[in-house]
């Protein structure tokens, strides 16, 4: 995949992992025994970003007219090759309508048209130390978050092993390795007009501008 001139574009199913950063886990730990959760998650908590969400880097992401701000979910993602092997890494922005509750599947918050910014460049996994990657999130040029994959609940191989216990990744499938929250438990927010950039050393940055829905 090195020096691949064609922009990367997902062809398989895009899965994402929730609660995979220690900070968010620890912040939510006091609520975990309470209803409706009644216990900390045992298996990885997953979601799918459907194909209608994919937005290429450089393209605009539309914020629906009834939504003021959206969460920016900066992720490093793995792209699978044949035989469920990890082939490449790509930067993605898992955009969500902010939601407090993790009880029900987040389809109406996460599967909105355009809500996954996809980096143009897939780097060979051999050239990336996944669990040492640090992402920088900028909104309108200002750094708002640093995401360090040393801080995950499940390191990448452990996450893959625990998911592979019940499902097999197909060639072209993608796994978002998790997005971290800020110290207040929220994620960086974007509103209409904001330019969001997610970068990591050695990667071409993922840039998307957020715009309002056409009237």
């Amino acid at each position, binding site marked *: 995949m090195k020096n691949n001139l064609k922009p990367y574009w997902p062809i398989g199913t895009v899965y994402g992992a929730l609660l995979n950063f220690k900070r968010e886990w620890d912040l939510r730990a006091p609520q975990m025994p309470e209803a409706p959760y009644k216990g900390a998650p045992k298996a990885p908590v997953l979601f799918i970003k459907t*194909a209608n969400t994919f937005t290429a880097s450089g393209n605009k992401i539309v914020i629906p007219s009834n939504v003021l701000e959206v969460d920016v979910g900066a992720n490093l993602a793995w792209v699978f090759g044949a035989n469920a092997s990890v082939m490449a890494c790509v930067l993605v922005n898992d955009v969500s309508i902010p939601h407090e509750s993790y009880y029900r599947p987040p389809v109406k918050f996460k599967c909105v048209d355009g809500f996954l910014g996809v980096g143009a460049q897939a780097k060979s996994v051999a050239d990336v130390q996944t669990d040492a990657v640090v992402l920088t999130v900028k909104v309108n040029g200002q750094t708002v978050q640093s995401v360090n994959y040393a801080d995950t609940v499940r390191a990448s191989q452990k996450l893959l092993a625990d998911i592979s216990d019940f499902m097999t990744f197909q060639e072209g499938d993608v796994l978002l390795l998790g997005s971290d929250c800020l110290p207040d438990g929220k994620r960086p927010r974007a509103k209409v007009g904001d330019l969001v950039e997610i970068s990591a050393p050695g990667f071409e940055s993922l840039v998307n501008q957020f715009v309002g829905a056409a009237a």
Partner: protein
Amino acid sequence: MKHARIAWAGAVHEAVESDGELLLTRSPWAGKRLKFDEVVWLPPLAPVPQARTILALGLNYADHAKELAFKAPEEPLVFVKGEASLIGHKALTLRPQGVTYMHYECELAVVIGRTAKHVKKENAYDYVGGYTVANDYAIRDYLENWYRPNFRVKNRDTCTPIGPWLVDAKDIHDAYGSPMNLSLQTTVNGKVTQSGHTRDMIFDVPTLIEYFSAFMTLQPGDLILTGTPDGVVNCEVGDVIVTRIEGVGDLINTLGE
């Protein structure tokens, strides 16, 4: 017309039902007739250029919602499945060792026929390509209250049989008025364990298409599994489960380990 995708003679073929047989429709085998038990049945879905969106409803029949001790939802309870969980008619679904409660869910599956965005209920059927039967197995031992129903319950390899036929929407609409007028039934080893009717859905097919297409554009080949009625029971390895929807088909599955 009832469409199938099958594997036979070393290749994958498109076929249609004809007088109780499969009639192959494409060169070089166009016109060839095969018995149902001569072929391997694949999910009756043409390949799509990017990931197929598979939406599945929970608690969409009033009686099933009651059975599971929930009040009926005020908006659709929906989760998403990966395409890799789909398998065809007459296939083997894996029951993990040591689990105590694995049950079928007989569901009408809506196959989207053309790009659907901001569709209104009144026009929703124009966007349906056809219907098929899905058996959306669940393993309740693995239920957790995080994005419930969680993937370990609902996105397992081999655990979503679908087929045997993709029935043209027009055939169902002509014969039954709408897909909201079909009986559903599941048998386990020949004994009826689940009976229901699509008219008892809380959110009917047009409502679901309007709801989803308001925020997510659906593409041809995308699926909506519309939920299951009352009457799910635990099944064991070796059990033969037939999920039947009137006018759509009998989907046969066997549990293996």
